[in-house]
């Protein structure tokens, strides 16, 4: 007689990889869902596809030319990158900016925020499967792209801020002011109609409600930022701290549901607040010059600056050496921190819902690539955000 061996229990983990080129993901990143009977048990987002080494090529450039690259970090929120990179040197060297320039920067930023949120709503509707809503969102977005084109001369990279003000070409004349106000009025009516329909649609809301829950504690622990965090009840917006936004009265959209529906609605409501800001800025636009050329590059200490990009907190910092060249440029984009919170939120849902959850943090991956750590036990990779901790633990990657 042979003794019966106790049978080893083997857990077979089934993996469902998506990407880097996949219809559900517009941008090249790779998602690995570890599924058990179509329920996501673990989820992992690999972001290393569009790594262009931006921080490295910025090293040693003259500070005026750096604006060309920092604007091209991201194609959706290009103005916030350009604005934040000039805010660093303005803060570090105490460059005075004319008030008219500050208002024009705010106008460009808010118009781009509306365009970005409309992309998100269109993309979310596309992932959900409602193509009509997606196409309508893209159609509404075109009007805002036109306004950016009138201001800056380029649809995607308007290049509005320069060091000490805005580009003289981006001066808002009286006729352009009238055009923008008329377009806003026409577009706001359409937007209210559109958002009302999206929120009232039972098919779309049935896919979004109660899926991908992220509690407030988890949002703070995983450092969600921007509308992703505000949809979970985190009451924080960098616009509260920025002196550029002090003259305007508007509301912050804070929702407490924390599911996909809240994340879509938070952005939809924020569009109307942006329209409010643009109206006020155009109404109170101060007279005067738009650019202050009275500065010269010189030695600057390490200075940092935060800005509220359409997706959340954006961090830029650098120092200048004696010749006015850039040293130690550091960029942290909002997606890198938000994506881990939705990675967490996607657990426990159906696979089809998990794709919507990943899309619901509005991932913009052109700009976020960081240190990559491979866990030896499970063989899974993680990107980290807090560089100091990682460097202390693992040393430099290159």
């Amino acid at each position, binding site marked *: 007689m042979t003794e019966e061996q106790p049978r080893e229990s083997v857990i077979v983990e089934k993996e469902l990889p998506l990407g880097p080129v996949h219809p559900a993901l517009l941008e090249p990143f790779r998602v690995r869902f570890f599924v058990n009977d179509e329920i996501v048990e673990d989820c992992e987002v690999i972001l290393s596809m*569009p790594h*262009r080494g931006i921080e490295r*090529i910025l090293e040693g450039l003259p500070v005026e030319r750096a604006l060309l*690259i920092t604007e*091209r970090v991201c*194609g959706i929120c290009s103005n916030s990158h350009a604005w934040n990179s000039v805010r660093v040197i303005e803060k570090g060297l105490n460059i005075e900016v004319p008030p008219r320039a500050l208002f024009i920067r705010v106008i460009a930023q808010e118009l781009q925020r509306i365009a970005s949120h409309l*992309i998100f709503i269109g993309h979310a509707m596309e992932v959900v499967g409602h193509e009509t809503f997606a196409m309508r969102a893209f159609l509404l977005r075109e009007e805002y792209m036109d306004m950016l084109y009138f201001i800056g001369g380029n649809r*995607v*990279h308007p290049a509005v801020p320069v060091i000490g003000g805005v580009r003289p070409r981006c001066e808002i004349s009286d006729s352009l002011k009238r055009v923008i106000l008329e377009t806003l009025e026409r577009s706001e009516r359409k937007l209210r109609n559109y958002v009302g329909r999206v929120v009232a649609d039972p098919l779309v809301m049935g896919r979004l409600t109660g899926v991908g829950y992220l509690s407030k504690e988890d949002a703070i622990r995983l450092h969600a930022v921007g509308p992703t965090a505000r949809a979970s009840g985190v009451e924080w917006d960098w616009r509260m701290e920025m002196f550029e936004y002090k003259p305007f009265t508007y509301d912050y959209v804070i929702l407490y549901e924390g599911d996909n529906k809240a994340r879509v609605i938070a952005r939809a409501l924020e569009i109307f607040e942006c329209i409010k800001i643009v109206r006020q800025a155009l109404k109170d636009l101060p007279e005067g010059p738009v650019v202050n050329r009275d500065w010269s590059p010189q030695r600057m200490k390490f200075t940092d600056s935060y800005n509220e990009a359409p997706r959340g907190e954006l961090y830029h910092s650098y120092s200048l050496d004696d010749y006015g060249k850039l040293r130690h440029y550091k960029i942290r984009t909002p997606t890198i921190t938000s994506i881990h919170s939705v990675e967490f939120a996607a657990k426990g849902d159906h696979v089809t819902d998990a794709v919507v959850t990943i899309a619901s943090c509005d991932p913009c991956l052109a700009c976020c690539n960081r240190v990559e750590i491979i866990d030896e036990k499970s063989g899974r990779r993680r990107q980290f955000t807090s560089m100091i901790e990682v460097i202390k633990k693992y040393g430099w990657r290159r």
Partner: protein
Amino acid sequence: MGLKATARKNAIHALLVYSGGCNGCDIEVVNAVFSPRYDIEQYRILLTWNPREADVLIVTGAITWAMKEPLQRIYELIPEPKAVLAVGSCAINGCVFRNLVGDIKHNPEVFAPLEKIIPVDIKVPGCPPRPEDIIMAAVKGVPKLMAAP
């Protein structure tokens, strides 16, 4: 017009591969060209995500390390005849990521001109190109597909 050309003319499928630029051209292609205002579907060019049914390959972005091999594989998977569009300065000459570098002189992360990796038929310059230009280039690629045996 033969049967093949008629069949091809009525459904030209375009596949977009975004290979690591700033996202601007990508958004312009998908959201502007395929959106209601600049409607490329009026020329019967449809967006697809399946390489095996694609006719036109649209490549945007400076080609990064991680995207080089997938791009070559996608190009091989597309059946003949095929046309390749390089959209944006990044795909044509690397834009700022290749030409405006600081101390290191050469950026090793990007393989910028797309021609070095796969043959390119049509180039659309601009950072990012206007949607009208992209539509014009895509329509120009059609006769090449028609003429193929």
